[in-house]
């Protein structure tokens, strides 16, 4: 199997992503029509049956998430377009190629949970996507397809932690983007204390196709427990650094060697980091793993956002991981001690190891610190920050040993 399977990106560059009319010509907004003809409970059941799981990285069943929303006078649908994971640009691509599918998906969710107000939180690095989305919303409104569902775009301002759903909500409210304690979860108490569903761009964009083609169709694509397609973005030492949409049972090896065209400049493969900068580094012997959430998890890695960073044989793993540890120190919001101090110490120890001044004792200490952070940090940022360190000490210990006193 070496073919892409384009569902979300089927009409990429063939339609104007801002134009609702263009989208309707290729079957757009039929899913919303069908959703609106259904009872809310039946719609949620249909989405549950499709097996659609969150495409932002956590992999939670979307229909299940919606089913937790209680009755309330005001509820919100929030789209996470913060996309801060280094190496990730799939949500930008989905907006630039098929923005109307995102709007339609949000309106479908709105009907399912009984909300008439949506927010898209777009990262501050994408002001051009904010403009595109505002035009797309205006186009959808003027063609009448959204009916009573309103969508507002808010722009982030360069804080990675705002990809965490409660930090994102804080930011929309105009506060510092610091994560909240959970529970209560946003589904019960989210934006302005109202029940709120937060889903990723790609998750929303899958919904129109699930409604039109049926839950069984979607559940039959790719991996059984994480069905559908996934948009991947390739970067690093790879011949084709671009985006691809593949069924979720596609293997990493095929991603790199077939779609990616192999390693650049005829060099050999050393490692691949999947899921962005918080992902694990994966060695050659694990490349035959399918990319789905559970298969990646079973080998101690994660699909995450679907970013694929390929490193060739000449790359210095310890140096790359040191750079990554600086990223987390910079992006830690400082609210909880395990992350604030932990990311600082991780960076400090990694710099010591990278400059040849570290010892095996430092490696033991950093692995212990990693365990503390994974158990005690308030949000995913602090929990995931040590994963690149742990995974490289596990799979590329010899590279560390070369630099150890």
């Amino acid at each position: 199997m070496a073919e892409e399977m384009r569902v979300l990106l089927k009409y990429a560059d063939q339609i104007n992503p801002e134009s609702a009319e263009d989208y309707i010509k290729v079957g757009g907004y039929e899913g919303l029509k069908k959703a609106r003809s259904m009872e809310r409970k039946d719609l949620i059941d249909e989405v549950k049956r499709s097996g659609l799981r969150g495409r932002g990285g956590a992999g939670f069943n979307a229909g299940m998430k919606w089913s937790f929303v209680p009755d309330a006078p005001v509820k919100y649908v929030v789209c996470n377009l913060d996309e801060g994971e280094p190496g990730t640009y799939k949500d930008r691509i989905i907006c630039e190629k098929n923005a109307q599918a995102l709007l339609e998906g949000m309106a479908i969710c709105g009907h399912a949970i009984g909300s008439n107000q949506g927010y898209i939180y777009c990262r501050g690095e994408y002001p051009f996507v904010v403009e595109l989305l505002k035009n797309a919303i205006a186009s959808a409104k003027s063609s009448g397809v959204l009916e009573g569902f309103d969508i507002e775009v808010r722009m982030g301002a360069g804080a990675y932690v705002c990809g965490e759903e409660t930090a994102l909500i804080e930011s929309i409210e105009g506060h510092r983007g610091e994560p909240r304690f959970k529970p209560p979860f946003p589904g019960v108490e989210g934006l302005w204390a109202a029940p709120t569903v937060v889903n990723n761009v790609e998750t929303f964009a899958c919904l129109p196709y699930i409604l039109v083609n049926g839950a069984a169709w979607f559940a039959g694509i790719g991996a059984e427990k994480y069905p559908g397609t996934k948009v991947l973005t390739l970067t690093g030492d790879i011949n084709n650094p671009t985006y691809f949409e593949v069924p979720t049972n596609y293997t990493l090896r095929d991603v790199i060697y077939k779609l990616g065209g192999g390693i650049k400049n005829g060099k050999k493969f050393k490692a691949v980091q999947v899921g962005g900068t918080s992902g694990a580094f994966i060695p050659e012997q694990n490349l035959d793993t399918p990319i789905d959430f559970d298969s990646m998890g079973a080998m101690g890695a994660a699909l995450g956002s679907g970013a694929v960073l390929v490193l060739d044989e000449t790359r210095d793993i310890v140096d790359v991981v040191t750079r990554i540890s600086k990223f987390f120190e910079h992006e830690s919001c400082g609210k909880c001690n395990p992350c604030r101090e932990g990311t600082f110490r991780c960076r400090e120890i990694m710099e010591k190891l990278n400059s040849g001044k570290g010892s095996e004792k430092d490696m033991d200490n950093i692995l212990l610190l990693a365990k503390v952070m994974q158990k005690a940090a308030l949000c995913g940022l602090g929990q995931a920050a040590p994963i690149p360190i742990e995974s490289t000490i596990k799979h590329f210990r010899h590279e560390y040993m070369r630099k150890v006193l």
Partner: protein
Amino acid sequence: MANYKDIIDNCKSTKGGIIEAFHALQKEFNYIPQEALTEAARVFGLSEAQAYGVATFYSYLSVEQRGKYIIRMCESAPCHVAGADEVIKAMEDYLGIKVGETTADGRFTLELCECIGQCQATPVISVNSKPIFNVTAQQIPEILGQYK
């Protein structure tokens, strides 16, 4: 130049819109002037300390005066392996400033940033949020020379 009070006033009806107001102010002034921060705090019903806390939390917002063109160099892992360090050095040499500084003529401010989501074309810099792709150290004089 637009009045900061009018800019803030335009965002007044947006619930929780102080960050939107800060973006609008930066579009005009390239940073958030002190008197505008005070006014925004008043309009959105926050203390000045709270408003300052918001403005300084986000790396894209600045309460310090900056140049006409804000250059950001991505130093996340994909750009790092593609040679970001050499590009930073070339920019520092060309502009005669260090990261975090503004040129004496007020034209350029040089900042580091994390991933800007253009990893198909590393290393990437952005000038006033416009991304520039596959940048090499050799191209820096030519690229930055276009900004007058």
